[in-house]
């Protein structure tokens, strides 16, 4: 076939195919499904780390595979990984493994459960490595299905409506996204991300669109933003989230908050900003308002919740709001080296935040799962008290995660937020200032949680609260170590990501 390019071994195809095959095996493995799934997950993690380690050092795409698929429609099987993608791959692999580890008490049909989890993982891998819109959109949509069924079949009491709302909402958001990208295809004849980015950065995209379709570039941008706004989510398109997160079984929530929400931010970075940078810059102010609202209201809403899962659901909204804040803030033509540096900082922060929040949030929900197991399903914030006495290790480790979420320096959560604010303040200081409120409220929320759950007197019924046993300890420890590591040595990630950041920014035009 002509036009085929592969740089060596098709690692990325392998990476995506692995969980799919694993799902098939898991489906027939009966009660060994979890075991199978974890092996596959571990393999996937290894491969993703290999990919991360072998990235091209200049920040361009590595591991490229290109095969024509339906040329008349501009559809190509085009995979590639740069720093951003590779980091997301690693994140997905880690969070998936965590989710599988957390799910050790699946009562019904564990084979189906783990098959779906693996399929979801495959969807994530596919989405993060796709460099052609059709391919990307395929995985974007496909990943919804395992998520839906995971919520629907193993979820809590109100899982039906939650799952449906999740699915329908996200798909409804996808339609304007699809239509907008179709418009772009119509105007340019291409669905290739890199090609389109080049067109946009040289300023040709808008004239081409105007030529073929009329002055609809802004509408196309809005369409694309709509799709991502639902996914991230951005307020006020977030209403599907609290129900979905709280009704889903906690391991599934780990996946939802750890990885699926990142798909939205990734989409912003891979599609929205490169192609529609100028339009976003035009709409910057209202978008910043939305982002700030998300940050602040997310935190406020978290403060008002009584269900721990909902607390952290809203808190996720808040944390991702920072990403969006940074994204919108950097959408401004850079007029000085200092601005460029701020943009780079902001972008680095976004990517780091994606990774760190993914890990941290997944951890938090893991802990909630453990909590629920021991409490027999109860997870109200007021139901507990003084748990650090009967379960000090539990309290300690969860404390790590909580503080990371709060943004304590030394833990991973701090780095991303720091860089974001470092970048946003010079670029949009009003938004940044208001967002600090979010930080404060978040801090209050976290501290309240700690206080209500772990501190204070121990009620009778929790006196026998079981602490973590060594198996769980062993599973959690690596992640905690990772959090500490990244918190203390963030350059481990930043060094891998920064070239990509520079590369991306060079091609973005506002």
């Amino acid at each position: 076939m002509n036009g085929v390019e592969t740089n060596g071994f098709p690692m990325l195809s392998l990476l995506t195919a692995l969980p799919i095959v694993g799902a098939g095996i898991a489906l027939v493995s009966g009660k060994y499904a979890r075991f199978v799934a974890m092996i596959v997950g571990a393999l996937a993690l290894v491969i993703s780390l290999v990919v991360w380690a072998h990235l091209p050092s200049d920040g361009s795409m590595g591991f490229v595979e290109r095969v024509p698929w339906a040329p008349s429609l501009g559809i190509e099987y085009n995979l590639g990984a740069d720093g951003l993608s590779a980091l997301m791959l690693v994140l997905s692999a880690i969070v998936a493994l965590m989710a599988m580890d957390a799910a050790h008490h699946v009562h019904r049909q564990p084979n189906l459960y783990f098959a779906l989890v693996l399929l979801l993982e495959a969807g994530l891998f596919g989405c993060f490595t796709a460099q052609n819109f059709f391919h990307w959109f395929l995985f974007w949509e496909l990943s919804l299905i395992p998520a839906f069924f995971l919520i629907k079949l193993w979820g809590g009491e109100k899982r039906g409506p939650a799952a449906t709302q999740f699915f329908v909402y996200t798909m409804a958001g996808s339609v304007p996204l699809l239509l907008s990208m179709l418009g772009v295809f119509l105007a340019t004849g291409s669905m290739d991300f890199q090609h389109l980015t080049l067109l946009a950065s040289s300023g040709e995209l808008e004239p081409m669109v105007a030529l073929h379709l009329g002055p609809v570039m802004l509408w196309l941008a809005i369409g694309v933003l709509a799709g991502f706004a639902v996914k991230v989510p951005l307020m006020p398109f977030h209403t599907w989230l609290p129900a979905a997160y709280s009704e889903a079984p906690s391991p599934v929530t780990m996946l939802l908050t750890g990885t699926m929400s990142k798909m939205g931010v990734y989409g912003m970075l891979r599609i929205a900003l490169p192609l529609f940078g100028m339009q976003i810059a035009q709409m910057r102010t209202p978008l910043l308002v939305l982002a700030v609202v998300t940050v602040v209201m997310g935190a406020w809403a978290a403060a008002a919740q009584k269900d721990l899962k909902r607390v952290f659901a809203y808190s996720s909204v808040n944390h991702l709001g920072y990403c969006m804040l940074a994204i919108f803030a950097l959408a401004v033509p850079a007029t000085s080296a200092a601005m460029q540096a701020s943009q780079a900082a902001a972008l680095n922060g976004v990517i780091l935040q994606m990774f760190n929040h993914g890990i941290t949030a997944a951890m938090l929900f893991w802990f909630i799962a453990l909590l629920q197991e021991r409490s027999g399903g109860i997870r109200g914030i007021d139901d507990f008290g003084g748990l650090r006495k009967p379960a000090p290790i539990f309290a300690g480790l969860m404390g790590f995660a909580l503080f990371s979420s709060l943004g304590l320096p030394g833990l991973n959560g701090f780095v991303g937020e720091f860089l974001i604010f470092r970048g946003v303040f010079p670029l949009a200081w009003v938004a940044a200032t208001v967002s600090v409120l979010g930080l404060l409220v978040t801090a209050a929320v976290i501290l309240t949680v700690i206080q209500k759950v772990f501190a204070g007197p121990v009620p009778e019924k929790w006196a026998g609260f079981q602490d973590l046993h060594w198996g769980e300890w062993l599973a959690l420890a690596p992640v905690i170590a990772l959090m500490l590591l990244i918190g203390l040595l963030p350059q481990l990630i930043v060094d891998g990501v920064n070239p990509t950041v520079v590369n991306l920014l060079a091609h973005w035009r506002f």
Partner: protein
Amino acid sequence: MLAWTIYLSFAGALIEALLPKGNAALARWVALLVSVVGFGIAVAGFVSAAGQGRVVIADAPWVLTMGIHYTLAADGISRVLVLLTGLAAVAGVLFSWNIELRTNEFFAFFLALIGGVYGVFLSFDLFLLFVFYEIAIVPKYFLIAIWGSTRREYAAMKLALYSFVGSAMVLVTLLAAYAASGSHSTGLIELSHANLPVSFQMWAFPLTFIGFGILAGMWPFHTWAPTGHVAAPTAASMLLAGVVMKLGAYGCLRVAMTLFPHGMDAWGFSFLGLGSWRDVFAVLAVIGIVYGALVALVQTDFKFVIGYSSVSHMGFVLLGLMTLNQIGITGAVLQMFSHGVLAGLLFGIVGRIVYERTHTRQLADLEKMHLSKRLPFAAWGFAVAGMASMGLPGFSGFVAELQVLIGSWTANPWWTAAAGVGIIVGVAYTWRALQRAFFSDVPPAPHVHEHGNEHELAALTWPEISGFVLLGVASLLVGLWPRVLLDTIEPAVKALLAGGAQ
């Protein structure tokens, strides 16, 4: 070689009619054999002719004095649709495996219908096309009237009469075109080069388009479709929605648009924002998409949901046709294939796998049955089919709808936006049906516990599974590797647009 699909089917029908009455198994196996061989021929024909344009299969003078020839030919579009017919035929036989009442007559009518459909897709003489088109009407009537369910006699008669009226309209234009072109020939190619006066085309086009459009389920002439689909036995519904509606769309493309292209020119004045017949029919198509979806959303009978969804999906086909550009029409043809397969799948699951066992199609009753546990194959199968039907990437429907949307955007962005709305509603009604029928959390009905043996619903039989797998794989294959069909469709559409089937 492709002509053998027609002859074989009719021969099979005759054999079935003559089979001894009591032997249902024999009837089934004969039917399966005939349909599988037919499908094999269709595939062979498809593969062997890949890369070629229009291939003439047979051309014999029929009534020489009137210029009527028995002309069979196949271009890319025909080959794809013949392939679809083969698939639908095999799947239909498989999903009808349990019919005990007058089995041989059932398959006789079934195969006769299939033969007629093959004939339409392969005819390149307008008279011959019309003959095959009409031949298909009578078996439909009997299939529904004898083996159907809800209100079957009424539905069958309605279907037969609507189809007949549609074909009557086509007959009138056929006669007029024949006369206007000098009564030399009824060949499609000759007529398309006959340079019929524009004023003639201006009324011949809408008449023909509506005539065929009735069978294609064009709004507002679609009302036979939901009633018909619901009343028909499963295999007949599969064929009706899967293949017969495509006859109408094919007729719109092959006859109306090819013979009377100037009928789509602008009128010169604008009425309610519509400036040509093309605008009118595109708007009707879009209305069909949205209307079908909205009505499907509120149905209480499972089969009605799918019936209305067929109307909605055919709206996409008609919209694609009216875009008059390469991508749009290609998308329309691909959607014909895709929806043919998916409708077959959906009806197969609902009609055969579910209804046979639960004896109800009311969503309210199914809600209480927790079918995801008792019929997991059906539940997941429907989930997959439903998602494919709503246009999920990875299946054929997405590629087709993608192309139609692209094509329609070029023609008119507003149509695209409305179609997009239709897609969203499509997600909603599919999801609603899926939820309520299979995955609901409503507490089970009390009577379910009373009869202990109701816990176990009959296990899935191999014909059901094979039918499902056949169709599912087809849709998946086309979804993941659309070139398998696009490479055949695109050149044909290009030739069609360039100058009416040279």
